[in-house]
């Protein structure tokens, strides 16, 4: 789905330095985090504020529940800080 051009010599280089858009998704920035968000679904009201405030699109709605993409979440903690229901806590990443 994500097409990354393979280049082995100058002849393969895409002319004008043009590459497919959006391929950075393969970069697993989840490795950056020191803390990870964990949600208490019982407290969550699905207000979606955590989703709209995430800088890294790492809050996802999966089967009607808030989940986190830990492969990309950098652990900034904005979701936990902003949650009006205090449903998210930041745990040390191990």
């Amino acid at each position, binding site marked *: 789905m994500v097409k990354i051009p393979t280049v082995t010599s100058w002849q393969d280089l895409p002319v*004008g330095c043009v590459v*497919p858009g*959006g391929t950075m998704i393969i970069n697993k920035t989840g490795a950056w985090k020191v803390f990870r968000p964990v949600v208490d679904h019982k407290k969550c009201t699905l207000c979606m504020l955590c989703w709209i405030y995430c800088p890294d699109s790492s809050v996802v709605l999966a089967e009607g529940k808030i989940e986190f993409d830990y492969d990309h979440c950098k652990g900034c903690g904005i979701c936990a800080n902003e949650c009006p229901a205090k449903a998210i806590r930041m745990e040390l990443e191990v």
Partner: protein
Amino acid sequence: METEKLTFTGNESAALGAKLARVEVVATYPITPQSTIVENLSRFIANGELKAEIINAESEHAAISICIGASLSGARTFTATASQGLVLMHEMLHWAAGARTPIVMAVTNRALCVPWSLHADFQDAISQRDTGWIQFYCENNQEVLDTIIQAYKISEDKRVLLPSMVSLEGFILTHTVERVDVPKQKDVDEFLPPYKNEFFYIDPENPLAENVVVLPDWYMEYRYQQEVAMQNAKEVIDKVSKEYFDKIGRNWGGLIEAYMMEDAEVAVVTMGTIAGTARVAVREMRKKSGKKVGLIKVRCFRPFPVEEFKKFSSLKALAVIDRSYSFGCGGPLCTEVKSAFYNTEEKPLILGVVAGLGGRDVNVGDIINVLEKTIEVSKTGKVERETIWLNLKGEQLR
């Protein structure tokens, strides 16, 4: 209609060239002596003679950036500038070449400040020789019109995809009326198909990003790819000259024009209108004194015609007339000509001449003097002075 007129200034010729090439986006910024090129284009567009959009940019730097954006988005683009305007564009000239945008720009050569000058010399265009643009230097207004049309075909060739600048000297060509034949639009259309960009396009289903950061692992390869394109241009320039001759009937040569060089022992090498004057000088000298002199006109400075020069390695001596200068080094054309001969077994003695800076007139007599000096050098076998500044008021120290 323009085609009923028989005589045009250099600027009108450049505007007609762009019009016949059916440019789609023109970015303008006024600067003497270029302003009437964009004024003419504005008039063509306002009258519906040219279906294009004109953007009156807020600076030359913006004008060239607009051209890059428009070219990437698929439009055939044109702009014109001179002197300070061209050097203001410098950052984006590198950008346009690296982005492989086939922009064509008319440069109405004018000396650079300081001191302030409005008159012709090549310092503006020559100082951009490292930017990766193809460079043409025109001798007369007819060549200007023809070269602009050819430049689109050359630049847009898939093996090239590099921008071109077409130089015409300020006031000497830009404001001088000459006899110019304007080709028919239908013939130009057959010679030059519409521009179709293929490597970058705007398609939401297949989004592309242009100009990402390239680390040391691949940057050199990108530059090599660009150099290959520049080398490909040599073949394409020759091919396009022949095609233009077949379709329109005029041939300005490929990268160079060798005039009366078949039996020449000594020659003058130069560009632009000085080449036109040199033609007359060469003919006169041959007629009056039978001396075997000739002219090598460099029509295309980038890519530099290295192989073409190597063919003249058995000449006794050359004088290279530069209408520009690289401080602390020498005339750029002279330096590059010398470099072309460096590895050949035989090589001519080379005399560098700097002339015509800031619009100073270079006449037939001057070139005859230069050729006489060159003949002297060919006889003594010694070049006493590497560079002579022609008709300088005062003693030359080096």
